[in-house]
């Protein structure tokens, strides 16, 4: 029976907290009255008896508090009441509350959005069922880990493999889409093997996808288009299925439309559709011609290791049959999602992540400092409450309640900030040329929220625990604004030093990156990006079947463009030095000892017209440019100055000869030496191969670049150029027509975005650190008001007081700066190793950043210091 009653009592207490408190008050009231009556019975006067009884019992509040303490831990309702208490006491300190909320919100918000970006870049999931079973298969050679495959090898591997249920091949291709009477456009597509869609495992939105029947040479006049292309080009008209469009001059049937998002531009680049990849008989002969990417879906019972072993064994078997093309090759298997990520973007994101962590750390330190400052100021309040009977646990519990309220509020605000930052970033970041959406991942938001909670609880509790050790009597006797122990002060100073150091690291990281990027864009690349208009053309094979036809088009195009008013020079070339030459050849040098086959060095090769060097502004160091006559007979070559220096030091390279190792009798004579060029958009490589040139006419490519040196702003000529090309061939689309300087800027746009985000972080970190310093120095001033008053009463000038207060803040700043400099130097080194092409920032930038930090901290110290000088000695001394 008592047990049931006890359960009932407890239940009643949890539910009826209010009535329990009332009962408690009643019980104690009774106690005092009974004591009074006892004293009256002993002969005291009623008034004295009542006073004595009350004195004996003490404060009813204190007693109630003690019973509450005893209930603590057994009673859940305490939590709700203390949270309310927390809100109330926070509202009484609006300055503290708003700064703490802001700090938490910024820390949580910025990190949530940074983690969201990281998640999008690093842990991107392919939008295909069981995408972890999708594996990219690369060929390895003694020098490469990610080489492509030849059609013949692909077909052999596809027919032999057991560990892949589907082994598909694909290659990027561009097709010209031109309807009569409409401007032509160039479309990016993937040419895919018939089993490609089966491997990815996604059904089309409308119609059908491609099947193995489609990739036969006489059956491949079909195409599947993306949802986006269907919407943009055909206004989402379902009757487009079965109709045909003109691609590269041929009628192609649209047989299917894939669902939105299937063409994930992060994985594939931006594409408009998929066409069958069919192999002609001679494709299957040329085993040495490698241009296919390979993607497979593991069969249910296979693992990556099994598939790897199996592919390697097929590879070895093929090498025995075809030693000329397949020896010394192996296979490299990488999960599909990971294989498509840009290594440099990944590294950069990690770099940005590191800096974001700095912001979080500064926010935490700030929070700790704020709580410390608040607790120091509240020492007296705590001492009074302790004297009134509040236990240590109770006081700590109240601090915890405050922390929880702050964490919930700050975390909520932080999520709003994250949503806003992500929206702002989404409209500025691009994968390929499409804007990318950055969604807030709720797992990440949960994590950030938990981090805020943890930070607030730890940094809220730590000072509370420390200050709860304060001796009550000592605190009450002390007439100042509160007390603080030496260890306490040392901890706060350590926090400030850490904050300044972290801010310096942040500023340096962001500043060096941004400055490096600016210098990268503005550096001397060895060719003129200003005043240069560039474009790319692709001549379809159907209309331009042979070199003669291509050459005729070249000549007509060049003369028409050169005649355009405002154009000073025109050249055509296989490529332009934005990212690289994109084509290399092995070479041997006449007179040098023969090398073992396969170990010859490689050179970059660009094919150019005679006017290329003058149009591009590339200086000719020695010899001559190409001449129209160079296209006939044994073709000459032009090499870079660094190649000439390295191969023929101390003598002229003109007249020397090099050749391709497989054509050792076709010597190419060096007729000119030109300045080295740098790849204007490429942050990754610093271009370690020697650059060489050969006449465009010696091997005319269908796909080529146009460069025009302009006397007028290049953008003004765009329409005239389009018109000339349309007159020459109305079905020919012009791609990438833009001033070269704009292309360089666009190509580095994502880096510039990262740079801007970093600058934002750095300024945020600096602001937080300044707030922290301001808070510490302010607290310091508040605590020493009496002392300052006495000093001033004894004749100290305001200047002395200013120096007194400033010097302490500046000491902390200088120590922080010294420590931060070491960190900043490390960050600069890391950045340099991540982006070798990025020019290192000048020492003056480091100086300017340190100056900015010192100036900011000086202001943060100066504001409270000035307040100290305004202390009126009389008021300060009376303020006891």
């Amino acid at each position, binding site marked *: 029976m*008592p*047990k049931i*009653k*006890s359960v009932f*009592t*407890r239940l009643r207490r949890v539910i009826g907290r209010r009535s329990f408190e009332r*009962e*408690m008050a*009643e*019980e*104690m009231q*009774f*106690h005092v*009255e*009974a*004591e009074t*009556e*006892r004293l009256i019975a002993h002969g005291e006067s009623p008034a004295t008896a009542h006073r004595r009884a009350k004195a*004996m*019992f*003490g404060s009813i509040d*204190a*007693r109630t508090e*003690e*019973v509450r*303490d*005893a*209930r603590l831990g*057994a009673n859940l309702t305490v939590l709700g009441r203390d949270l309310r208490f927390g809100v109330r006491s926070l509202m009484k300190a609006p300055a503290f509350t708003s700064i703490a909320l802001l700090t938490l919100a910024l820390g949580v918000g910025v990190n949530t959005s940074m983690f969201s970006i990281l998640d999008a870049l690093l842990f991107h999931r392919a939008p295909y069922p069981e995408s972890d079973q999708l594996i990219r298969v690369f060929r390895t050679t003694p020098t490469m880990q990610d080489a492509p495959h030849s059609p013949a090898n692909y077909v052999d591997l596809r027919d032999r493999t057991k560990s892949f249920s589907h082994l598909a091949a694909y290659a990027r291709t561009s097709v010209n889409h031109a309807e009569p009477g409409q401007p032509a456009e160039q479309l990016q597509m993937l040419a895919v093997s018939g089993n490609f869609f089966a491997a990815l495992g996604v059904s089309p939105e409308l119609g059908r996808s491609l099947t193995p029947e489609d990739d036969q040479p006489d059956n491949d006049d079909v195409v599947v288009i993306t949802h986006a292309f269907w919407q943009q080009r055909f206004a989402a008209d379902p009757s487009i299925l079965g109709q045909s469009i003109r691609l590269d001059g041929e009628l192609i049937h649209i047989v299917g439309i894939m669902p939105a998002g299937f063409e994930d531009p992060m994985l594939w680049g931006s594409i408009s559709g998929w066409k069958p990849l069919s192999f002609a008989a001679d494709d299957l002969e040329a085993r040495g011609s490698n241009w296919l990417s390979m993607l497979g879906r593991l069969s249910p019972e296979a693992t990556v290791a099994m598939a790897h072993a199996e592919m390697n064994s097929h590879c070895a078997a093929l090498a025995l049959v075809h030693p000329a093309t397949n020896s010394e090759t192996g296979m490299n298997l990488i999960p599909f999602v990971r294989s498509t990520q840009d290594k440099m973007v990944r590294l950069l994101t990690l770099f940005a992540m590191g800096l974001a962590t700095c912001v979080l750390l500064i926010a935490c330190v700030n929070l700790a400092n704020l709580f410390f400052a608040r607790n120091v100021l509240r020492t007296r309040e705590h001492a009074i409450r302790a004297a009134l*009977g509040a236990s240590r646990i109770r006081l700590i519990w109240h601090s915890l309640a405050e922390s929880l309220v702050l964490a919930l509020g700050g975390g909520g605000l932080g999520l709003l900030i994250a949503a806003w930052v992500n929206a702002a970033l989404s409209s500025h970041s691009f994968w390929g040329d499409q804007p990318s959406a950055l969604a807030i991942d709720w797992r990440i938001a949960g994590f950030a929220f938990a981090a805020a909670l943890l930070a607030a609880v730890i940094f809220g509790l730590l000072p509370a625990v420390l200050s709860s050790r304060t001796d009550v009597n000592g605190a009450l006797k002390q007439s100042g604004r509160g007390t603080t122990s030496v260890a306490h002060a040392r901890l706060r100073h350590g926090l400030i030093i850490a904050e300044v150091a972290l801010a310096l690291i942040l500023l340096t990281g962001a500043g060096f990156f941004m400055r490096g990027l600016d210098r990268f864009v503005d550096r001397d690349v060895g060719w003129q990006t200003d005043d240069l208009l560039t474009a790319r053309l692709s001549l379809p094979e159907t209309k331009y079947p042979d070199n003669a036809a291509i050459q005729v088009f070249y000549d007509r195009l060049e003369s028409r463009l050169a005649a355009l008013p405002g154009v000073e020079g025109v050249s055509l070339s296989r490529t332009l030095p934005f990212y690289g030459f994109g084509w290399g050849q092995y070479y041997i040098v006449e007179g040098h000892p023969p090398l073992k086959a396969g170990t010859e060095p490689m050179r970059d090769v660009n094919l150019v017209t005679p006017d290329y060097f003058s149009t591009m502004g590339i200086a000719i160091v020695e010899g001559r440019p190409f001449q129209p006559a160079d296209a006939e007979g044994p073709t000459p070559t032009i090499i870079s100055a660094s190649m000439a220096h390295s191969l023929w030091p101390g003598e002229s390279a003109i007249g020397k000869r090099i050749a391709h190792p497989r054509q050792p009798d076709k010597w190419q004579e060096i007729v000119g030496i030109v300045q080295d060029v740098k790849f204007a958009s490429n942050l990754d490589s610093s271009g370690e191969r020697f650059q060489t040139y050969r006449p465009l006419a010696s091997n005319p490519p269908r796909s080529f670049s146009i460069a025009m040196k302009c006397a007028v702003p290049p953008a003004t000529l765009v329409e005239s150029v389009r018109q000339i090309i349309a007159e020459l061939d109305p079905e020919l689309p012009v791609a990438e027509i833009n001033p070269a300087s704009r292309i360089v800027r666009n190509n580095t746009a994502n880096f510039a975005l990262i740079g801007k985000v970093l600058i934002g972080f750095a300024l945020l970190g600096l602001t937080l650190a300044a707030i922290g310093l301001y808070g510490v120095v302010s607290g310091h001033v508040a605590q020493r008001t009496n002392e300052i008053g006495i000093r001033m009463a004894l004749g100290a000038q305001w200047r002395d007081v200013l120096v007194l207060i400033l010097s302490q803040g500046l000491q902390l700043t200088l120590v922080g700066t010294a420590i931060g400099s070491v960190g900043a130097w490390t960050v600069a080194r890391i950045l340099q190793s991540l982006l070798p092409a990025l020019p290192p920032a000048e020492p003056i930038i480091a100086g300017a950043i340190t100056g900015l930090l010192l100036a900011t901290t000086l202001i943060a110290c100066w504001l409270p210091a000035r307040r100290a000088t305004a202390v009126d000695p009389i008021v300060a001394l009376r303020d006891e």
Partner: protein
Amino acid sequence: MAKDKTDLLQGTLDMLILKALQLQPMHGFGISVRIRQISEDVLRVEQGSLYPALYRLEEQGWITSDWGISENNRKAKFYEITKLGRKQLANETANWERLSLAVNQVLGAKLKDLG
């Protein structure tokens, strides 16, 4: 006031409260008076310790409480010892006797040696 007060050892107060309640249910004030009486005014229960202790004992199921009418016809909260409480009191009493006997022996021996 503190002159004749002897500080109670931790846990002793619980024992004294249970002892006071052994004979009859009592209210808080009655318990404090009773302890003073039995101890001939040597032990004085701090009010600050009494009520939390009562609450603790009730939580442990050694006493129960209910509202009743006091000797001068006023509403008061009465505490009653439970079966579990009596068992606890017996255990504590035995422990206390063992302990105090030992302490007395030590102190007595010392006095004899000194004398």
